[in-house]
């Protein structure tokens, strides 16, 4: 038997301690449930596959500040230099870098007539040549890549082609194949020739993060500030920086090379806020459980001291050690479960507040439940140690002091 009735009546007699315990458990469950939900959300964001050969792609920027430099020509020369460097698998210029938190966004329409046109969702807009796909390490699952003679140098050129990411294709064309379809940028027609399995954009928190397009424009010819992506095996990317600097400066010293980093490093940087949040909240949860456990132990210890006489008497009347431990455990579980239920509800309310204030998703019920279970485990340990001590009180101890 669990003797719930006598436990309850003894709890009711000195209310303040159990009420405090209850309050602490309610708050803990509310915090732990919400925190662990946020942690889990962030971790699953961070675990998404980007579609890139992240640790093989070295990116950097070049700034040609000599007005005499012909940017278009220089871009061709520079790409040749990159591809001829030892250990380089492939290289390409690009208008934006994946997962970098900065880039281009655009949308296509399905008709040149603005009045009736339906536009695609916004997508990350990569401009590049026939090498870009290979540099990215992205997987083409339908259609084909650009060929060398299809590469444009200007937005006004004709013969625009594009490869789209599969999530974008699904979002706009559904199950239909987008291959061969024509879309428009203003009155400029663009033909879809390929579908890439996965190709994330620049902003990890953007809802259209998985929607991307690569269009056949070699962007390096524009402007004086440009980005390049170079693919090499991870063991070679470190040494590559020096080689690139040397080769580029030998070709023309009037430029600044900067921001050498791999896509893996870019990714780390853009996710750093999420990693930070997950870490801070994890620490909070651990500390909270620790504090709750320690506080509980302290309180149970005191209760036991106060009840020494009672325990001794019970022992003298034939209660086994097990009964004594059980008594404290049941008392604790009673409080925990009541607190857990109330705390769980509070957690949901708090979650709702967070949701409406900061547009976070709603906390699923499983989180409060798991938090209560976690708390039950922690309190078990916190109670069992002093309870076992209490069980060792000999009947004689109790009677002697009377």
């Amino acid at each position, binding site marked *: 038997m669990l003797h719930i009735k006598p436990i309850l009546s003894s709890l009711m007699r000195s209310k303040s301690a159990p009420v405090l315990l209850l309050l602490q458990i309610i*708050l803990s469950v509310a915090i732990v449930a919400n925190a662990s939900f946020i942690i889990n959300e962030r971790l699953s964001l961070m675990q998404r596959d980007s579609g890139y050969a992240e640790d093989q792609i070295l990116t950097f920027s070049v700034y040609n*500040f000599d007005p005499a430099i012909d940017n278009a020509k220089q871009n061709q020369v520079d790409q040749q230099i990159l591809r001829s460097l030892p250990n380089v698998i492939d290289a390409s210029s690009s208008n934006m870098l994946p997962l970098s938190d900065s880039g281009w966004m655009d949308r296509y329409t399905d008709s040149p007539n603005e009045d009736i046109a339906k536009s695609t969702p916004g997508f990350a807009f990569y401009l590049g040549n026939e090498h870009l796909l290979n540099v990215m390490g992205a997987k083409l699952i339908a259609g084909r890549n650009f060929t060398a003679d299809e590469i444009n140098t200007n937005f006004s050129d004709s013969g625009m082609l594009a490869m789209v990411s599969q999530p974008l294709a699904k979002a706009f064309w559904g199950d239909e194949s987008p291959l061969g379809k024509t879309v428009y940028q203003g009155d400029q027609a663009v033909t879809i020739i390929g579908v890439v399995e996965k190709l994330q954009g620049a902003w990890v928190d953007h809802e259209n993060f998985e929607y991307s397009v690569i269009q056949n424009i070699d962007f390096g010819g524009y402007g004086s500030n440009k980005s390049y992506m170079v693919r090499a095996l991870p063991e070679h990317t470190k040494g590559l920086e020096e080689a690139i600097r040397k080769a580029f400066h030998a070709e023309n010293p009037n430029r600044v090379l900067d921001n050498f980093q791999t896509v893996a490093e870019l990714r780390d940087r853009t996710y750093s806020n999420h990693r930070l949040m997950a870490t801070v*909240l994890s620490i909070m949860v651990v500390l909270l459980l620790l504090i709750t456990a320690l506080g509980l132990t302290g*309180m149970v210890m005191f209760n036991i001291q106060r009840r020494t006489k009672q325990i001794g008497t019970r022992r003298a009347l034939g209660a086994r050690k097990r009964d004594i431990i059980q008594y404290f455990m049941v008392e604790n579980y009673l409080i925990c479960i009541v607190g857990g239920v109330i705390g769980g509800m509070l957690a949901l309310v708090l979650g709702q507040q967070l949701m409406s204030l900061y547009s976070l998703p709603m906390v699923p019920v499983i989180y409060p439940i798991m938090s209560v279970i976690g708390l039950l485990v922690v309190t078990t340990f916190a109670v069992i140690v002093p309870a076992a001590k209490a069980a060792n009180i000999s009947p004689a101890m109790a009677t002697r002091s009377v």
Partner: protein
Amino acid sequence: MFFYYCDLAWRSIRKTPMLSMLMVLAISIGIGITITTLNVYKTMSYNPAGERSEMINSVQLWSQGLDTWDEFSSNITYMDAMILRNNVELELKAATFRTGLALQSDNPKIEPVLNSVRVTDRDFFKIFSVPFLYGSYWDASVDLRPAYQVVISQKLNLRFFEGKNSVGKTVFLNRKPYQIVGVIEDWNPQPKYYDPLNGAFNEAEEIFIPFSLTPQEEFEVWGNTNGWRTEPMLTYNDRLVSEKIWIQFWTELNTVEQKQSYQEWLTRYVEQQRAIGRFTDTAKTIPELVQISDVAKWLEDNNVVHKDTKILVGLSLMFLSVCLVNILGLLLTKFLKRAPEVGVRRAIGASRRQIFSQYMVEVGMIGFIGGVIGLLWAWGSLTALHAYFEVDQSLTGLDASMWFITPLIAISTAVLAGVYPAWVVCRTKPSVYLKAQ
């Protein structure tokens, strides 16, 4: 009496080392976490404009096509910026954006570096009260007729000219000679309120050049360019005549009347542009066509305080309240244990008030010790944030006010937790315990 109570409190704390340590630990961790998040929140939500916050105003126009975006954009087009710049009614006004240029000097030993550069008008320095070390901003005529003049930072002046007055000397930006007209003192407002769009906590630019040079020098835009219609962007001029928005516009308005009359002027302007068919969106009507944001509103609209930070502050305050309840329980435990002692003291003449204050001093002392340790926790965690998560230095420096706020929170938390237990214990009836003896 106070010092006597302090002595008593210290003895009492030492008598139950485990329990006291538990309490100090709980309160210090609670305080540590709260102060860490509060510190980050405080530095993020700091308004560097201070008293001048309401005078410094940014201008946003409802200048878009149908169904484009739902809120005012922070930027405006070049065409609009030019018209706003030419409005003679305004005393101080500055269009501004960020670019990057390669900086060189006559000193061949120093390699060229790519620097971020602020392109703006002379009034920028007045509006934002930028302090000058040497020289001053360029002449008003330069804002109309471009000249290759530049204001540089003290740091650059130190690097290129060994800190001497360099006014009149020349530096090269993208190989073009610019004449230095002024050197500013270290100026790095955090958050970078004049342009939070490119990261509110990155460093202020160290080079300032006239906005009027933009069309001829075709400066690249380091920052967002947004557009709502498909327009060719083949040449720089395409950008200048397009509906693309990429320029921030600031002005100083000192009185409510000034603000109102400017609002009216701008509204008329937007209406006029609607009439000629430029802005076609009709979602907003008079008088909502224009938004003039002072610095406080501007920082708020640009989400300078990250929402994660707000969530963390909320959760850490809840965390602190758990600690509070925890300590409350432990204190109750401890004080009740000493009830017999209190009974004796009451019997030999101690008043309730004396007992109560004695226990409050003890609680305050625990809170104070917890606060000091909590401050160490906070300092440690902020240092860790900076080291392991590349959180900006400016956010992870312990704000001076925290030295005051921390003990305040710590002691008041502890006192709050201690009131009930102390009250319970001072109501002890002497007779009960005397009998038991």
